[in-house]
């Protein structure tokens, strides 16, 4: 006797009996099954039937085409494929790029641009620095920044001792870019925008970023380097005001 499908789905049994999938269905027999009706009638395959509509037909095959065989020689360099003439509807996706400047621990915005299209936001910390942008209690962006402050000269291949490697200095002023999804920031929210630059310990690198603020999640593993607490557009230089208004309009 065949087994019913066990409630817990069960496991394969070598040389086990057939599994009855649906006891309401019959076993396969030998005779043809009853014909089913389609739209109330029996339809059999017939030869020579004409299609109901001939309004959308492929062009006729050229007479000389059959039974010709073999394509021509190697194709010449082809022009690029044509994009659809009908433009796809504009996506609402986009982000704002804020150009941040840090000098002597003070952070400022020096420009802004709007960028169309989606934005990938990494989910883990990767490098020695990272920024976090929040509006009120909501994080709107966070990203690691490699190689933020170091400045290196090429080694000197002709140089004497001491010049075999980079000449390394650390910049007291530097720049980075904050990228915030367009729908997460408005002009009106700029006073609530907070951007914090952190130095990330080795232990926190490669760790996934949770929903908490970085400071709360990683505690002593992240060290605040600089912070921007709110933006008063009217207090910014005119070109920066203009770029912010344009980017966030």
């Amino acid at each position, binding site marked *: 006797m065949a087994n019913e499908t066990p409630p817990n789905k069960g496991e394969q049994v070598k040389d086990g009996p057939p599994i009855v999938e649906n006891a309401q269905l019959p076993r396969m027999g030998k005779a043809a099954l009853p014909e089913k009706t389609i739209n109330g009638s029996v339809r059999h395959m017939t*030869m020579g039937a004409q299609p109901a509509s001939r309004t959308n037909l492929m062009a006729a095959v050229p007479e000389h085409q059959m039974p010709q065989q073999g394509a021509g020689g190697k194709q010449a360099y082809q022009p690029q494929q044509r994009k659809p003439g009908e433009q796809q509807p504009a996506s609402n996706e986009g982000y704002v*790029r804020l150009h941040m400047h840090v000098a002597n621990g003070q952070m400022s915005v020096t420009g802004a641009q709007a*960028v169309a299209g989606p934005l990938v936001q990494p989910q883990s910390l990767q490098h020695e620095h990272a920024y976090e942008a929040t509006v009120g209690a909501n994080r709107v962006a966070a990203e690691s920044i490699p190689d933020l402050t170091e400045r290196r000269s090429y080694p000197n291949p002709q140089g004497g001792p001491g010049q*075999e490697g980079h000449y390394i200095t650390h*910049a007291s002023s530097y720049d980075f870019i904050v990228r915030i999804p367009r729908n997460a920031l408005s002009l009106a929210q700029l006073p609530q925008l907070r951007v914090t630059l952190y130095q990330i310990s080795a232990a926190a690198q490669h760790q996934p970023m949770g929903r908490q603020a970085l400071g709360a999640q990683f505690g002593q593993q992240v060290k605040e380097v600089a912070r921007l607490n709110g933006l008063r557009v009217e207090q910014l230089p005119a070109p920066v005001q203009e770029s912010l208004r344009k980017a966030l309009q």
Partner: protein
Amino acid sequence: MPDSMTQLVSAGPPGTKRNLVVLGDGFAAGDQDAYNQKVQDLVINGLFQQDLFYEDQQAFNIYRVNLISTDSGVSQRVYDSNGNIISTTLKNTALSYIYNGSWSHCWLEDGTNTEFLLQNALNTWVPDYNFVLVLLNETGWGGCGGGGRLVVTLAGDWSVIAHESGHGMGGLADEYCVRGAWPGGEPGQVDVTTNSDRNTLKWANFVNPSTPVPTGVAPAGTTGSCTGYNQGTKPSGWDDNQDVGLFEGGSTYSTGVYRPVINCRMNSNRPPYCPVCYTQMRRVLDPYTDHTFLNCYAGDFNGDGKSDLLIHNDNSILLYRSNGSQLDIVFSVVAIVPGSWQFSTHDQFYIGDFNGDGKDEVVVYNSVDWAIPYLGLLADDGNNGLDLIARYDGSMPGWQFNKTDQFYVADFNGDGKQDLFVFNGSDWSIPYLGLLASSGWGFSLVQRYDSTLPGWQMTPGDQHFVGDFNGDGKADLWVFNGSNWSIPYLGLLSSDGTSLSMTVRYDSTLPDWQMTPGDQHFIGDFNGDGKADLYLFNGSNWSIAYLGLLQSNGSGLSMATRYDGTVPGWQMRTNDTHYVADINSDGKADLFVYNYQDWSTQYLGRMISEGTTLTADWAASWVGEWHLGAVDQFAPCDYEGASGQPDLFVHNHDWFGMISAGFSIGLQKIYYRWIHNYRYGRNW
């Protein structure tokens, strides 16, 4: 000549990629060709032909900005040995950089308004940027990097940029040693450490247990050099670039700090990244390559008898070559291949030897992403890659491509070159079926059937299968329709090379089989007589599942064996999924069978044909380290070639596996997120 921008590589929207911008300073109008060539040499033909950058091209948009300087060459400044300016000669250039030729002044410096000019150029010409490379029209040696920016002269080559990219993109430390003792604590970078404890080492997972830790210890007083393998005898075959240990010296210091390998790119530029740095770079770029293993295709693209792998992601393809036990990258392209074919999201790939040269080619079809449908034929470019040798834009004589064209690879004229059957049952008032013969250089229509095939009235629900059921060397066409008529039909249409004729049509029943809409057909010569036979499965229309082995005698089918509910060794279920392959290389087509839905765990089985009967075995839940799951897709292949027996590629979004199946089911290799063969360890 106005300023301009050219996008050299277009991988995707700027917010989803890393955007590399190259700008020139000191290039006058007459220097622009030289500038363009230098960018090509450094970036496209240089950096992005190298290991990781080649593999991860799809992470990058590359923009070349042509800024026209009034003067040719850049401003010059000379310092004396005390760092005092001796002289400055200014030129009128686009970005006002000043070359000073002084190591301790970073070889070059900003002019008074360089930052403003650079930001203005970036904001004007590119939507976004992550890495900025400025090329100075200056032949003297030098370059200055940091802060996401690298300014170089004409004297450098790609290797320095590759090293600098390790800093700028990966946040990697230098691994050379020019100073004495490390003065600090544990460095933050992944490729240097002060920790010599094997158990807590940052890169412990890459260190073979047989490798001593530390592996190289600096003799007392060492300064200005890195230590190699000196803790025991270096094993034969040790690779100074790819075998990982713990070597004293790194981050520019000689003692008190360690690096992973003897000689990484972060030590001496030209070698590839070591496993630690490679993995860091790939992790950093991974969100931007956005590669998956969802669209994988097996094919022997170099004709060595071993199945290789083609992976398609959006507008890129990657080709990996099998050496019998692992896969290695041989080709990576983003956006376009010479010829030209622009890869796109909805490209469909069909693999076959379309020119009879013993190597597989690729037919690619896209009826979604462009203004008109396109069909392309990609063939070996002679350098492990592919280029386009034929393309049909919208139509070919006698066939107009349309949205739902379905293609079937089959050598219907027996000339040793795979051809194409093409069917469209939905986009026109009537169904069409075409026979597109391959010349090796392209395709031409040799026959088209409008509405009817001989002895068969075509309808949208027709399902097609190919296989040489009469053994004449020409692939024939099998057509099944279980849904559009009052009874199911199965037709066997033989090909004479240019046309089809109905050999036999089964109405409602096959020998010892009642046809129903849920019948699933798998063509394979299960008795090894040179004629394609039919495996027929139905798991949904009856109270139990059935599998029939219907053998062809060239003019019809007869039931060799019908299994009701069980094949010896396998209890059949509704959602069994089958794949045809000659698993044991005995000339008889067998079946892989997979079921992840109907049991408490997942089963991957083999049904081996003994001519007219089957015996089965299986692996449950795990195949080695591969945890079988609902998302798994399988592709029968033969990555082992003559040395082995047919295998399976198994893949899903994040994982790719090579399953050997000839003698039993076992896992040969498993890759996560990317395909890379670490000498020891792995990236998860």
